[in-house]
């Protein structure tokens, strides 16, 4: 059955109508030197049956493994009802509403999501979501630059303790727009940004300062000090946070004397499965004063002529279909399905439930830290308090240790060497509420085994 609606006859008729000979001729205006002549061949198509089998086999590779990898994507228990409800046709097939007010159910769901997210961040407003955590941070940076437009210089401070992928995405987007990114080092003892590390960079005219919480190493930054420092520089404070952790820790709106101005991050920990890497969604919240520069869709609640409650897309004049080139961003969509799952997840858990899960994660991390005391060849390298993730320095190559753990179906953590070569043989390890005491015991035992066993690979590597 053909899924492409145009027959050869249709195509010929269309080409005749506009007076050209081939589809290829439509691309004539692109300079020849910019065209790729020989694209690598795309694999021949699979049948539906072959494709389903291929995907099942790929998915199986992630099954049955004990996952201690965090580094931006976190395994949490998701109650069955979350995706059972999310998968209903009304939610599953809904796209961003164009005939907005006809979609009251979708709008109400987004409104509830915004309310929960704003309250979790202790800020006034939330948009209806963005693509992922990294692009949400990039949007937060662009937002700060627009709010600071009176300044000719656009300088953003980003600590090296921010997720390296996020820093890459921000660099990709900001570097095209005359925005200078300045890296802030972290203290090698604590793993966090200190007052001294801020003094070291000694720059002025700062537009915004990105404050991670917890940071990429799992460590808790001194957010009050950092927020007040940013404000003392006349800069915006942007929190890049794990939303689940915010149920337990001080939320961005409460940081320092005046609170962070913008908060963003990855929504995945709230009801979205790891799913081999995506799709996830980004969130973005801010103080009310800055709402006109908040990109993306915003749903508002109002009353109709008869006084009945209704939901509307609000502040649309800043979006691209009205404001064209001057829109606050080119994002007019949202990750509706994932936001649906998150909204159901958060409503099931409630503030107490979220706090209990966050506390269970932290409890498990303490258990792990405790048991690691007996592993002499693995050292926790940072002294700052941590949420549910820590960095270990190993006495053997990280790759080797991960391979050894894989033999026991353990995904041992995230290898930091590629992104932080200066740290040496370092592994980031995460434990969420999904890990039992037995799981943690198994991890510690096998880690110890791998580190103390004499073997060729290790000797060779040394």
């Amino acid at each position: 059955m053909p899924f492409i609606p145009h027959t050869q006859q249709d195509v010929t008729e269309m080409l005749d109508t506009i007076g050209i000979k081939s589809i290829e001729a439509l691309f004539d205006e692109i300079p020849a030197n910019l065209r790729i002549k020989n694209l690598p061949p795309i694999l021949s198509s699979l049948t539906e049956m072959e494709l389903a089998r291929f995907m099942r086999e790929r998915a199986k590779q992630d099954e049955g493994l004990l996952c201690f990898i965090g580094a931006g994507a976190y395994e949490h228990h998701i109650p069955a009802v979350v995706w059972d409800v999310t998968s209903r046709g009304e939610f599953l097939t809904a796209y961003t509403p164009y005939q907005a007010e006809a979609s009251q159910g979708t709008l109400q769901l987004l409104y509830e999501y915004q309310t929960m997210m704003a309250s979790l961040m202790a800020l006034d407003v939330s948009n209806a979501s963005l693509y992922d955590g990294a692009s949400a941070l990039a949007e937060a940076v662009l937002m700060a630059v627009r709010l600071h437009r009176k300044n000719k210089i656009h300088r953003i401070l980003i600590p090296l303790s921010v997720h390296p992928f996020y820093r890459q995405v921000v660099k990709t987007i900001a570097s095209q727009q005359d925005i200078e990114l300045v890296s802030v080092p972290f203290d090698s003892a604590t793993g966090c940004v200190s007052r001294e590390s801020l003094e070291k960079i000694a720059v002025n005219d700062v537009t915004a300062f990105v404050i991670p919480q917890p940071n990429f190493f799992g460590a808790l930054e001194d957010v009050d000090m950092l927020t007040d420092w940013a404000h003392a520089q006349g800069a915006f404070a942007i929190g890049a946070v794990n939303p689940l952790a915010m149920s337990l820790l001080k939320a961005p709106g409460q940081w320092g004397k005046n609170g962070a101005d913008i908060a963003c991050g990855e929504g995945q920990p709230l009801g979205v499965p790891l799913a081999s890497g995506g799709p996830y969604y980004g969130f973005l919240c801010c103080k009310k004063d800055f709402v006109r520069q908040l990109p993306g869709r915003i749903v508002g609640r109002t009353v109709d002529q008869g006084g009945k409650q209704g939901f509307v897309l609000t502040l649309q004049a800043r979006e691209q279909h009205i404001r064209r080139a001057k829109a606050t961003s080119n994002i007019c969509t949202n990750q509706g399905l994932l936001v649906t799952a998150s909204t159901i997840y958060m409503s099931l858990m409630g503030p107490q439930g979220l706090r209990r899960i966050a506390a269970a994660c932290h409890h498990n991390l303490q258990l792990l830290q405790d048991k690691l005391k007996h592993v002499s060849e693995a050292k926790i390298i940072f002294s700052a308090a941590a949420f549910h993730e820590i960095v270990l320095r190993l006495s053997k190559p990280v790759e080797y240790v991960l391979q050894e753990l894989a033999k026991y179906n353990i995904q041992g953590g995230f290898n930091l060497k590629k992104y932080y070569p200066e740290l040496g043989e370092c592994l980031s390890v995460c434990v969420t509420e999904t890990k039992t005491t037995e799981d943690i015991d198994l991890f510690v035992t096998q880690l110890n085994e791998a580190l103390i066993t004499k073997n060729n690979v290790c000797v060779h590597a040394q």
Partner: protein
Amino acid sequence: MNNIPKTLKYSRTHEWVRQDDEILTVGITDHAQCMLGDLVYVELPEPESSIEMGQECGVVESVKAAADIYSPVSGEIIEINEALLDSPQLVNEDPYGKGWLFRLRPFENKVAGLLTADQYSKQIASEAH
């Protein structure tokens, strides 16, 4: 019928200009506010900044549209109507009075290239067809 005071000058982009000695006051016309509908937000130029004739120097945003404000003359901004930041509806209620946008000191004494009330009135009439 739109109110187009004879005493003012107009730009093709629907701004009005009033001259008081060396100072010019700029706003948007009754016709413009009528077309935009209820204003919810006004963004004004930076005081003490210099702007060129025809340069974008602000935004008026209503519930259904956002439009740029173009400076009808070249000059230095000396004052902005801060009341609009909290009460943008003043532009709808009193476009030639309390709803003024900004004041500037023109670079040249003679203000050229603007329309008279009659000319502006004809322009609106032709746009309507």
